[in-house]
């Protein structure tokens, strides 16, 4: 088929360009503006070059927040992905209980982030919280406001509670697409439970699982509201993750220059990691087909 060549067709892209410019590009440019300039208010800007970037790259505070952030993302991926798979494997495949489980699993996903934070903030309190009080009554020394380890455990458990459902539901969808004949063939071939998982269930889940990992990584890498509500980044700085640190810097201390430079690098890091994920995913796919 011959395609008509007409450069005027580019004008059709214009509405989208305008829309994206106003909703994303221009606000981002403001950040860029702050990142390369210094200001003392009054809308007066002085060129600062890469100073803010240098300042942030060498900042211990940022390194520590980044370290905590990476550790947090790794921990919740290591827990949520296997747990999600395990739950999906054990959910009923059909009937009333299947629907029941689906609704139950979807519930945490429907709760707004700050509500989740508030729930756990109260739940964990030693004086009035069910969890905190019960643990205290059992003689376990638990206090997320004083003890960094307890704070970490609370934040991790909260995230697992909130988001494992997403992994489980995605895996469940992958599992549901496996025809019964595959399980029957595996029984005929005398496959073990592990072989069934390894050669039938896992390959069919792989696509959704990679999406789940990507989503959970991105979300956890930008986590803000829940830990902010529960611990406020404390005790000390022990649960100050990247975005909490960023918000402190920008709106707490009003250090707009460093915060803007920080934001841009943060954005680039997430972009880079997502791109790596995507490339690995598509390459794996291509290799499989060979």
């Amino acid at each position, binding site marked *: 088929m011959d395609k008509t060549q007409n450069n005027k067709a580019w004008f059709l892209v214009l509405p989208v360009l305008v829309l994206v410019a106003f909703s994303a590009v221009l606000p981002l440019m403001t950040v860029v503006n702050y990142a390369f300039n210094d200001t003392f208010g009054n809308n007066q800007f002085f060129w600062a070059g890469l100073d803010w970037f240098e300042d942030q790259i060498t900042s211990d505070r940022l390194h520590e927040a980044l370290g905590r952030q990476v550790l947090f993302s790794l921990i919740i991926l290591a827990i949520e992905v296997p747990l999600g798979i395990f739950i999906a494997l054990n959910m009923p495949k059909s009937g009333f209980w299947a629907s029941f489980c689906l609704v139950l699993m979807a519930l945490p996903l429907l709760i707004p982030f700050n509500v989740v934070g508030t729930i756990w903030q109260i739940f964990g309190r030693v004086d009035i919280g069910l969890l905190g009080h019960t643990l205290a009554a059992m003689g376990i020394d638990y206090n997320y406001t004083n003890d960094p380890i307890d704070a970490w455990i609370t934040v991790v458990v909260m995230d697992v509670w909130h988001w494992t459902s997403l992994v489980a539901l995605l895996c469940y969808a992958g599992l549901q697409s496996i025809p019964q004949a595959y399980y*029957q*063939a595996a029984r*005929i*071939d*005398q496959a073990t439970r592990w*072989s069934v998982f390894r050669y039938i269930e896992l390959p069919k889940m792989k696509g959704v699982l990679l999406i789940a990992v990507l989503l959970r990584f991105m979300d956890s890498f930008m986590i803000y509201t829940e830990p902010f509500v529960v611990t406020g980044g404390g005790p000390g700085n022990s649960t100050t993750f990247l975005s909490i640190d960023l918000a402190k810097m920008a709106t707490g201390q009003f250090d707009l220059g460093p915060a803007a430079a920080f934001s841009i690098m943060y954005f680039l890091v997430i972009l880079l990691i997502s791109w790596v994920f995507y490339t690995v995913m598509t390459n794996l796919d291509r290799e499989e087909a*060979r």
Partner: protein
Amino acid sequence: MSRITLSKLAHSYLPNPKGEADYALKEMDHVWQDGGAYALLGASGCGKTTLLNIISGLVRPSQGRVLFGDRDVTDAATTERNIAQVFQFPVVYDTMTVRDNLAFPLRNRGMDAAYIAKRVGQIAQMIGMEDILNRKARGLTADAKQKISLGRGMVREDVNAILFDEPLTVIDPHMKWELRTQLKSLHREFGHTMIYVTHDQTEALTFAQKVVVMHDGRVVQMGTPEELFETPAHTFVGYFIGSPGMNLFDAELTGTEARLGTVSVPLGATYGPTTGRTQIGIRPDYVTVSGEGLPVTVKRVEDVGRHRIVRAEFQGQPLNAILPEGMTVPADPRVSFAPGKINVYANDWRIAPAEKVGGAS
């Protein structure tokens, strides 16, 4: 390898079956001889697959027992039965290579590597896949995948039986013939008990020594292709086997004759008193259209290549006849029936003649 006995077997998919109609398989007693090549033939939904899945243990029968040799395996899981089954649609392990797919059942049984390599080589040669053994099974075409499934079904030498559930549905016609021939030679070579489910009579008749015809959850006849052709035990067999199927006429029996409308057809034998609906059946192959015999009205003649099929009306009932090559339909067409080739049915089941008379063979 062992004999398979189905004893008082019946199955219903409903939890509390009430009448006979609730049963996908009606009560049956059958013995499948060790090393036999059986075809399970019947229309869609007649219970063929259910029966197969009961034998392989994928479905537990609601009544009766399944025995392999003398061992009761009714409650044994599929993995314990050591049975191979090939499904209608290809089931391959996508992430494995063709080689690993073929080796999978052997590895699960803990065979040693040298034996597995040798056996996989043999099977690969049989299904013509030696050159792509190291490829991932994922990118292959549907019929290549089905060949892998077939290969995986046959890779174990010590299986009790190999069950095929319409395995050639997705295969190209020319490949179908080739694979069927290979299955047959494989059967001769290794003597596995093979049960081959199909709804294609040609497939059934060419593959099997014994054909089991199922209708409406019941085994209506188990016999050689010849028996099915000459003496169908049930009107369904008469109608299902043969192209076109057997002619069936409502009739009344009087002595050695059957009365159809205004004419009498000699049966060459006497029959005991019949109850219910009485029919006589004759294959179109045994109906001669010529200038002699009983009058018919010819509706049309179809040319199917080697011969022609005459579609006619006989005493108000439809009749098909085979017209051999070179013969023509006369102006005043009449039909005659080959003596001794008429079967008598009461309520759809064949009744044997009580006594043969008058020189009819």
